[in-house]
């Protein structure tokens, strides 16, 4: 049972990494990024390819993560440009369709170029045991990577002026303009961050199990679920909801099976949207 819990926490951390980016991008750009899961895939494929060519694993991973960030910036600066000129319902619809189209396009290319590929990172160290429990070292590292990245993100948001500007825009866009904050530039930065965080989620997943290149939309849906439950504009909420849902998912899967676990999560999402649309843990960082 404790193994199940630990698995849940690990999965929860990955979910949190995915969801924080989605939340930040939605909060600042007004775009619900349906291509968010693709960042994970980009990282996975890049790191996998580079390391199979004999490149040092750390360099491969770093390149993969950075590439996801670059992809985020590119999205912001090219594809999504027209969205920011729109407002209200149109802004949301166009953003949804554009990112959905992009996700489908990327999925197709990847499935065509790398059929059946699964990316995973092997750590050549033997299992470690604490208190009589055996840990796979790769899982430990995955957990560490996730925890450190999340802590760094929180530190950045809480303690730097730029981080505070991001939180300020999340709370009040007009107020941010009054302070002389260039909202466009900060938005680009947030796409970079979102891409990187998702890329790190990919790294964590590659360490603990493997990244399935066909799972882009599935990963996006998971990130969506987490961000809705956490409150669509709350970074803290996303982290807490990610951990909680990760644990719930692991425990329920263990007890009653995978399908039912996912269904329960989805029902929770619908319930949250209907009865507490601001999310269960809403509080912007």
């Amino acid at each position: 049972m404790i193994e199940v819990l630990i698995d849940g926490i690990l999965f929860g951390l990955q979910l949190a990494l995915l969801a924080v980016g989605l939340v930040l991008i939605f909060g600042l750009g007004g775009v619900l990024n349906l291509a968010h899961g693709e960042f994970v895939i980009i990282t996975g494929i890049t790191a996998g390819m580079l390391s199979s060519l004999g490149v040092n694993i750390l360099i491969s991973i770093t390149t993969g993560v950075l590439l996801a960030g670059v992809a985020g910036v590119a999205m912001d600066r090219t594809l999504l440009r027209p969205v920011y000129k729109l407002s209200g319902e149109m802004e949301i619809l166009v953003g949804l369709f554009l990112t959905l189209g992009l996700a489908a396009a990327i999925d197709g290319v990847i499935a065509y170029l790398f059929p059946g590929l699964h990316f995973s990172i092997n750590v050549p160290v033997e299992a470690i045991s604490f208190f009589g429990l055996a840990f796979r070292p790769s899982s430990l590292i995955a957990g560490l990577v996730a925890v450190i990245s999340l802590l760094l993100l929180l530190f950045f948001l809480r303690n730097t002026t730029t981080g505070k500007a991001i939180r300020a825009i999340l709370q009040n866009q007009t107020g941010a303009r009054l302070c002389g904050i260039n909202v466009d530039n900060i938005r680009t930065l947030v796409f970079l961050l979102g891409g990187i965080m998702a890329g790190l989620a990919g790294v964590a997943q590659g360490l603990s199990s493997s990244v399935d290149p066909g799972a882009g939309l599935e990963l996006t849906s998971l990130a969506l679920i987490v961000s809705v439950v956490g409150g669509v504009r709350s970074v803290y909420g996303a982290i807490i909801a990610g951990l909680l849902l990760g644990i719930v998912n692991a425990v329920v899967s263990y007890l009653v099976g995978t399908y039912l676990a996912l269904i329960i999560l989805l029902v929770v999402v619908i319930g949250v949207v209907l009865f507490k649309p601001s999310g269960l843990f809403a509080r912007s960082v």
Partner: protein
Amino acid sequence: MEAILSVERLQAGYRGLNILWDVDIEVKEREVVSVIGPNGAGKTTLLKAIFGLIESKEGEIKFNGVRINDLKPHKRVDIGLTYVPSERELFPELTVEENLELGAYTKRARNNKDNLLEQVFEFFPRLKERKDQLAGTLSGGEQQMLAIARALMSAPRLLLLDEPSTGLAPIVTLSIYEKLKELTSELSILIAEQNVHQAFAISDRIYILENGRTVASGKPSELSEDSLIKSAYFGVSE
């Protein structure tokens, strides 16, 4: 004295709805100017257009002699313009100090942040006491102080103030106006105000706006509460 702000033949408004028609306004260095008029007259629209939150359709806005019509709001903050809307637009879930820190976001102000913060705290000691409190938990008057203080953190040369008395008890309004008077030794202020008495007490000059047009202007002593103002408010001349 040089004019820090001059607005000429300004027309502005929203989609299909022009609110301002040929408005002319001037603010000189270290001057307090009030725009008064009934609500719906276009006072808020005027300030928003000057700050760049609403595009101006016709006419010219000059700051320090330079045309700024096409400048984005954050650039206007950069050159020394700042705006405190009546909604205050604070960051409710940031602390008082963080709100102030963001007020000094522009490069020019950021280098001088500590000094500015000290000055602002000296000016509003109440805010210093509450610096670690979340802005959303402040009282109405304190929030108004914070909004003004945050604007001051950008080291402005011209402060645009929209109805600082909105939603405040008269005694709080009074203390805020007293504070404003102290400020004018260093910068110019343009206030949109419904509260005619306050405007008369504090302003060097006054413009009366009615239905999107400037209908009168002058020193308070020239205008006083004569039939002109009553006509602007009630449409009757005695």
